[in-house]
C-alpha cells in the first residue's frame, strides 16, 4: 500500500476507539499499579462520545477530521488524558490540514506533530515514563521506514512493535511525570499505563486494519 486515504484514517481512528473502549477496565488496571486507576475510564469516556458524534464529523479532509476528534477528546476525556490526547489529535489535525491522502512520510510527520502537541502541553520528554516512551519510538520507526521507502502497512507493523517495546522498557524507568512520579523508586518494574496502551492500540490497528 502506497498511501492512506482519508477514509483509511477514519477507519484507523474507528479501530482506535474500538480498542480503547474494549480495554477500558484493563487500562484502568494498568493505571492502578502506579497511578490512580482511572486512565481507562478517562480515555474511554472521550472516545465513546467521539463515536456517538461520529456521524456528524466531516470525514473528507483528514486535517479537519482529526481536529474535530481532538476537540471532542479535549472536552470529554477526563484527567491528564483530555489535554494529552486532545492536543495530540489537534496538533496532528493541524499538520494534516487540507489533506485527503497521506503518504508514509506524511504519516510520520503526522505522528511527530502529535508528539509535539503532547510535549507542548505536558512538558514531558522521552524517558519520563509517559506514553511518549511508546509514541516517540513508533514515530521514529515510521521516519526510518519512510526513508527506506517501505510499504506503509509493513511500516505500521514495525512501528507498532516499537511502541510495544518502548512501553515494555518503561518498566525500568523511575517515573517523573504524571501520578506515577509520586512513587519514586517504587514505580520501577511497573510499566506506564499510557505507553502500554499506545502499544496495545497500535498493535490492534495494524492487525485489524483492512481497506
Amino acid at each position: 500500500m502506497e498511501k492512506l486515504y482519508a477514509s483509511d484514517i477514519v477507519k484507523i481512528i474507528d479501530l482506535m476507539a474500538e480498542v480503547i473502549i474494549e480495554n477500558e477496565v484493563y487500562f484502568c488496571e494498568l493505571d492502578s499499579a502506579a497511578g490512580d486507576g482511572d486512565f481507562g475510564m478517562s480515555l474511554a469516556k472521550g472516545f465513546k462520545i467521539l463515536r456517538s458524534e461520529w456521524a456528524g464529523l466531516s470525514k473528507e479532509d483528514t486535517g479537519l477530521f482529526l481536529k474535530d476528534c481532538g476537540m471532542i477528546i479535549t472536552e470529554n476525556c477526563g484527567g491528564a488524558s483530555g489535554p494529552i490526547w486532545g492536543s495530540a489529535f489537534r496538533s496532528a489535525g493541524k499538520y494534516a490540514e487540507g489533506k485527503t491522502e497521506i503518504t508514509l512520510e506524511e504519516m510520520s510527520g503526522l505522528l511527530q506533530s502529535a508528539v509535539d502537541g503532547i510535549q507542548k502541553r505536558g512538558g514531558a520528554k522521552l524517558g519520563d515514563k509517559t506514553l511518549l516512551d511508546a509514541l516517540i519510538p513508533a514515530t521514529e520507526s515510521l521516519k526510518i521506514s519512510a526513508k527506506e521507502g517501505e510499504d506503509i502497512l509493513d511500516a505500521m507493523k514495525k512501528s507498532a512493535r516499537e511502541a510495544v517495546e518502548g512501553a515494555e522498557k518503561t518498566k525500568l524507568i523511575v517515573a517523573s511525570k504524571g501520578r506515577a512520579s509520586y512513587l519514586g523508586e517504587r514505580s520501577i518494574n511497573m510499566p506506564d499505563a499510557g505507553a502500554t496502551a499506545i502499544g496495545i492500540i497500535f498493535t490492534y490497528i495494524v492487525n485489524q486494519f483492512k481497506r
Partner: protein
Amino acid sequence: MKKIINRPETVVDEMCKGIVLAHPELVLSEKYKIIKRKRLNKDKVSLISGGGSGHEPAHAGYVGTGMLDAAVCGDVFASPSTIQIYNAILETRSNRGTLLIIKNYSGDCMNFDAASEMAEDEDIVVEKVYVNDDVAVKDSLYTIGRRGVAGTVFVHKIAGAAAEKGMDLSQVKAVAEKTIANVRSIGFAFTSCTVPAKGTPIFTLEEDEMEFGVGIHGEPGIVREKIVPADELAEKMVERIVKDIPYQQGDEVALLINGLGASPVQELYLLNNSVSNAIAKRGIKIYKTFVGNYMTSIDMAGASVTLLRLDQELKELLDEPSDTPAIKIW
C-alpha cells in the same frame, strides 16, 4: 464494592445535585458540573478551584462567602476538562479578574492552564497558583514536583478572605502564594479507596500494614510499613513536616487533621490529641485547629496532617468570616 450509589456513571452528577439541594445558596451548572455561589459579587476577585471528584467536601464544600466562587467537578479522580474550567471562568467573570487555585497534578495543571489561555483570549485576566503541600513527595527538578493535598483548603480560606475583603488580583495571588509557601502536609492510609467505576480497591494492605505518605487519589505512598500507635504516627508525621521548612520556637500554626473518608471522627480527634502533643513538644504554638473530613480520598481509611505556618496577615485572613458548607467561621 459497597457504595450508596445507583450506577458508577452517574455518581458525580447525582452527588452534585445532592450538594446544591442541601445548600440552596449554591447553584449547579449541570452541563459543565460547575457549582457556584447563587449570588456572585462582580466587584471582587473571582476564585475558582476544582479537580477530580472524590475529595468531598472539596471543592464544592468551600464555595460561598469568604472562600471560593466556583468549584469545577471532574469525574472521580480525573481533572475536569479544559472546557469545563473555561466555562467556570466565564460564569464567574468579575471586574477584578480571576484566580485559579490548582492542585499540582499534571492533569489538573494541563487543563487549568489550557482553560486560562482560552479565557485570556476573551480578555479575562486570569492568574493561577499551584498548591503543592505534600511533603511525602520529593520535590525535584526532574519530576512534576509535589502534589497538592489537604493544604489546599487553607489556600481557599485565605485567598477567599483576601478576595472578599476587596484585595486586588495580585494581592490575592500573593497571599495565596504565601500560604502555599508555608503549608505542608503528610498522610497515611489504612485501606485503599475504591473508585466507583473500577469497583475494586486500587491497592491492598495486610491487616497490620499502612501506606505512609499516601496521596489523595489512591496513589500508593512512599513506604508500606507496619501500623504504629497514634502517638508514634503523630511523631513521624510532625517530624516530616517541620523538617521541611524551618520552624522557630514560638512559631504559630494552623493545624488541620483531615480524614481521608472512612476514618471515624472519633479517631480523628484522638489523632488530634497525639499531633497536638507532638507539635507542643517542639515549641510550636497551635493558633487554630480543624478536625474532620476536609479533603478526602473517597472511602479511604486514614488521615493527613497539615501545618500552616502563620504570620499576622495569615492569622487575620484565617479568622475572617466564611460561610460555606464545610467551613463556617464568624
